[in-house]
């Protein structure tokens, strides 16, 4: 029961963070033009950006010839002196201006801006950035929807595993047969060596949640439906913040003593070490966030760029080589998905272990 509560708390925290920031496109190094571009390379960059960003509707694919879009819209929830809720289909993919209680909103490159009845969008002088104001955006975007979905999936998988133990004793059945060795792996090889046999139990729920969540979310990011959850730095930020909070709030006295007044070194060194160690407590979860985000984002950008190259080479040899390269890199990404989940979980366990470690001082 406690496990379920903690799991839902984790999912809820992630939801809140990503829905607040998730609709902003990530800062990326590809320049993209705002106007209509006929050049092939620019349109490839537009497509890549569009694929990697969060969006307010679930756009599965669209028919070029008939112009029909297949997918389903998601609710838009805005806070702008009052709550505005409407479905994103009213935007008609950015063509119409939506009116809601005397306020007008328009969709421009995936972001929602306040505007007037004609839908004027004001641009910045040099950078072609839009300078309209934005309302507070709490919508259920694609990423938030997928986080819900993955949470539900994990809940169902683990519930069926837990239930099958009741019926069949020691052996699970169904999906439990696949999950049990992995859960035992997390307990024996990640939790126990790093946290110690005495205290590992209370951290197990978080470690299991984080491991399976990151793994599943990375795997979903490799599918063509275009949901990239760990691509969003807000999501990895939320995960890292949870690790930091758990480390800080379950730490014992020895942990704080080692940070502020490291025993066993001369006094001038202690004074020098204190700010460094304090900064270290923030930098460690920060590096967790950056590592997960950068690995997954870089992998996705590289694969999509190589697929885009397929369209630039219009001959047989270049396109087929690009395709094979993209395929091989895709297989490597499968490994990276699992590896990043493992590394995140292991480093979190390491930080928890240092928080509850008991030293015997002389």
């Amino acid at each position: 029961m406690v496990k379920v509560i903690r799991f839902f708390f984790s999912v809820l925290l992630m939801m809140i963070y990503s829905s607040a920031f998730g609709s902003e496109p990530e800062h990326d190094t590809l320049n993209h033009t705002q106007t209509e571009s006929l050049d092939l390379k620019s349109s490839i960059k537009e497509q890549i950006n569009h694929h990697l960003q969060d969006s307010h509707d679930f756009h599965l694919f669209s028919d070029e010839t008939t112009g029909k879009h297949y997918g389903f819209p998601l609710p838009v929830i805005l806070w702008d002196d009052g709550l505005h809720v409407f479905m994103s289909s009213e935007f008609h993919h950015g063509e119409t201006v939506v009116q809601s209680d005397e306020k007008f909103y328009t969709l421009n490159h995936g972001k929602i801006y306040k505007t007037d009845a004609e839908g004027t969008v004001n641009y910045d002088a040099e950078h072609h950035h839009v300078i309209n104001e934005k309302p507070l955006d709490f919508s259920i975007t694609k990423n938030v929807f997928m986080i819900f979905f993955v949470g539900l999936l994990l809940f169902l998988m683990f519930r069926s595993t837990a239930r099958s133990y009741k019926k069949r004793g020691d052996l699970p059945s169904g999906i439990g047969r696949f999950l049990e060795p992995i859960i035992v792996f997390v307990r024996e090889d990640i939790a126990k060596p790093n946290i110690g046999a005495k205290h590992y139990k209370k951290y197990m729920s978080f470690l299991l949640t984080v491991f399976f969540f990151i793994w599943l979310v990375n795997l979903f990011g490799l599918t063509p439906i275009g949901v990239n959850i760990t691509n969003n730095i807000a999501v990895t930020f939320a995960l890292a913040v949870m690790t930091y909070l758990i480390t800080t709030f379950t730490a014992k006295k020895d942990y704080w003593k080692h940070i502020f007044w490291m025993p066993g070194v001369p006094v001038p060194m202690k004074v020098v070490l204190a700010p460094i160690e304090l900064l270290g407590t923030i930098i460690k979860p920060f590096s967790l966030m950056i590592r997960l985000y950068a690995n997954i984002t870089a992998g996705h950008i590289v694969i999509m760029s190589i697929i885009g190259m397929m369209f630039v080479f219009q001959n047989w040899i270049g396109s087929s080589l690009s395709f094979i390269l993209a395929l091989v890199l895709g297989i490597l990404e499968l490994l990276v998905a699992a590896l990043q989940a493992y590394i995140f979980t292991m480093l979190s366990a390491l930080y928890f272990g240092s928080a509850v470690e008991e030293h015997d001082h002389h």
Partner: protein
Amino acid sequence: MVGAGLVVIGAGIGIGRIGGSAMEAIARQPEATGKIQTAMLIAAALIEGIGFAALFAVG
């Protein structure tokens, strides 16, 4: 641009050295392969983390 290239060279050399010494260690003691592989992966991930952070800061 040059900074990004230097970062990748640094990360590449670091991970290459770790891989090399990991392989030597496995050759000496094949029964410790599991532990050595785990340690190698952890060190490689940490180095890659720094590499990516620097790459994002430069680019």
